[in-house]
């Protein structure tokens, strides 16, 4: 579903991501872990087209999307959520999701209808899925942090993606919120047949949900494989898990 080969990016001589390859199968849940500054966010930004890679290729569902603009990659089936919440703060929760749905259905250049009434049922259904139906008419920027993260997930889901990239979906959440979010993610991935690629700090989350783990360290891929194998890898233990476990 997602094939990444030899991705590399340097900023003013500093190599942030160095020749990283990764393959994620359809419906697989894959985690990318690594200490701070390992290049996880840059790696994600390269995949989603937010920044251009120096070399390497990204193939999404058989199509080469290397160097494409984010909105085109999004249209081809890659959804994304951000590490810091990234929503439309002055629109209501419903309007947020509605905007994403309108964009996905290509209605954005419709000058003649009323946005208010279009795709309303779909938007409400999506809000129900992510558990925000009760706050549909609240201004999104005033939501609690955890709810904003949920809404972000809703925005990513609105484009009906095949692959969902989540940059630290539980960052800043309490233990309870983290647990709920993971349960939600797992359920949605199951229901919609999603392929998930995510970064995460919380090792309990990673080993609880991921079917495959890739470890980044100083911009390089240190290890890749099923959770048990990665956990047993001595080098991984030395550079990373050791300090956390």
């Amino acid at each position, binding site marked *: 579903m997602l094939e990444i080969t030899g991705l590399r990016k340097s900023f003013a001589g500093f190599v942030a991501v160095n020749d990283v390859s990764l393959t994620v199968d359809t419906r697989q849940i894959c985690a990318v872990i690594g200490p701070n500054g390992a290049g996880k966010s840059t790696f994600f930004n390269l995949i989603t087209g937010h920044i251009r890679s120096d070399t390497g290729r990204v193939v999404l569902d058989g199509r080469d999307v290397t160097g494409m*603009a984010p909105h085109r990659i999004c249209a081809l089936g890659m959804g994304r959520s951000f590490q810091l919440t990234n929503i*439309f703060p002055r629109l209501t929760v419903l309007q947020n999701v509605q*905007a994403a749905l*309108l964009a996905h259905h290509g209605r954005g250049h419709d000058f003649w209808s*009323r946005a*208010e009434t279009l795709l309303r049922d779909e938007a409400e259904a999506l809000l129900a899925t992510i558990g925000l139906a009760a*706050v549909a008419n609240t201004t999104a920027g005033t939501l*609690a942090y955890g709810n904003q993260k949920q809404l972000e997930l809703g925005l990513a889901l*609105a484009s009906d993606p095949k692959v969902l990239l989540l940059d630290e979906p539980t960052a800043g959440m309490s233990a309870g919120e983290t647990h709920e979010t993971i349960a*939600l993610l797992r359920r949605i991935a199951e229901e919609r047949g999603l392929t998930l690629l995510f970064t995460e700090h919380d090792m309990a989350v990673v080993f609880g949900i991921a079917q495959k783990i890739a470890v980044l360290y100083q911009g390089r891929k240190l290890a890749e494989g099923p959770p048990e194998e990665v956990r047993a890898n001595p080098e991984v233990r030395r550079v990373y898990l050791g300090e956390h476990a």
Partner: protein
Amino acid sequence: MSIPLSRPMTRTALPMIRRVPWTLLVFLLLLPMPWVGSRYDTFLTTQILIDALFAVSLNLLLGTTGLVSFGHVAYFGVGAYVCGILMKTYGLPFIIAFPASGLGAAFFSLIFGFFCVRLTKIYFAMLTLAFSQIVWAIAFKWDAVTGGDQGIADVPFPDMRWMASIPGIGDLSENGRFYILTLTLVALCVAAIGQITRSPFGRMLTAIRDNRERAAFIGLNVRAYELTVFVVAGGFAGFAGALYGIFTRGVFPDYVFWPQSAQVMIMTILGGMNYLWGPPIGALVLDWLNQEITNYTQYWPFVLGSILLILLFLLPGGVVGGLVRLTGFVQRRMARRDA
């Protein structure tokens, strides 16, 4: 989900005053002006109407999309010149010159906007300003076409004799008829802009205003949307310019000079850029203050500046924002008393 939901607030992002056909109401309210008002009233209202359209068109960029254009007057000016040149130099009727002025302004917006939307924030603002100064320089120097610093004087009024066939309008003066024409065209343009703001396209624009980066990741080609709205806003500014050239019976390079961009921006912000009716109210307040204060003192820029300063500090959401807050406050008070 057991993630605690933040307390649901009844306050929606936009007030529920949209179902009222405001444009029609305002149109009907202002229609009798030439009969009941003085010549001066009609004259001042015509100017306010034209400025209102100009400010509403700017607000498509400023309030709706979050694009700070500091050169919007360029497209107003192009519209004024196109209409003036076609009517004066080539003797074409208004019915051709007016649409042409909008198209001409939209065409310039397309070319300049193509470069502008490649930049963001202050760099975008500076580039729009630069382009508007280019338009000014052309207007000032290209004697053969624009009349240079002499401009185009004596732009004729449109042929409004056909209006005589409408009952009641026959006895109006030419200025009165032009007022009716302006009111009708401005109302139509404002209604169109209102529809654009409420359309799915408008929703995409507000999404871009709120979060440009995220907008790309819901699948929007942000630059294409920005360019589209830049062209639309430019076109409507062109319409306003065309009317203004006829209203003042001439088109001069001053119309395109950059302080005019600042003035229309002040109108928009003063009235309230989060509301469709903010900019027209801003135009009303500014034009009216301008006239009134000039009557009393030669230091009007000083007085005007002070008043603006106070209004901007006391009403951060503009005049309309302040009114909406006041209405909400009164409603809550009433609800509390009822409870």
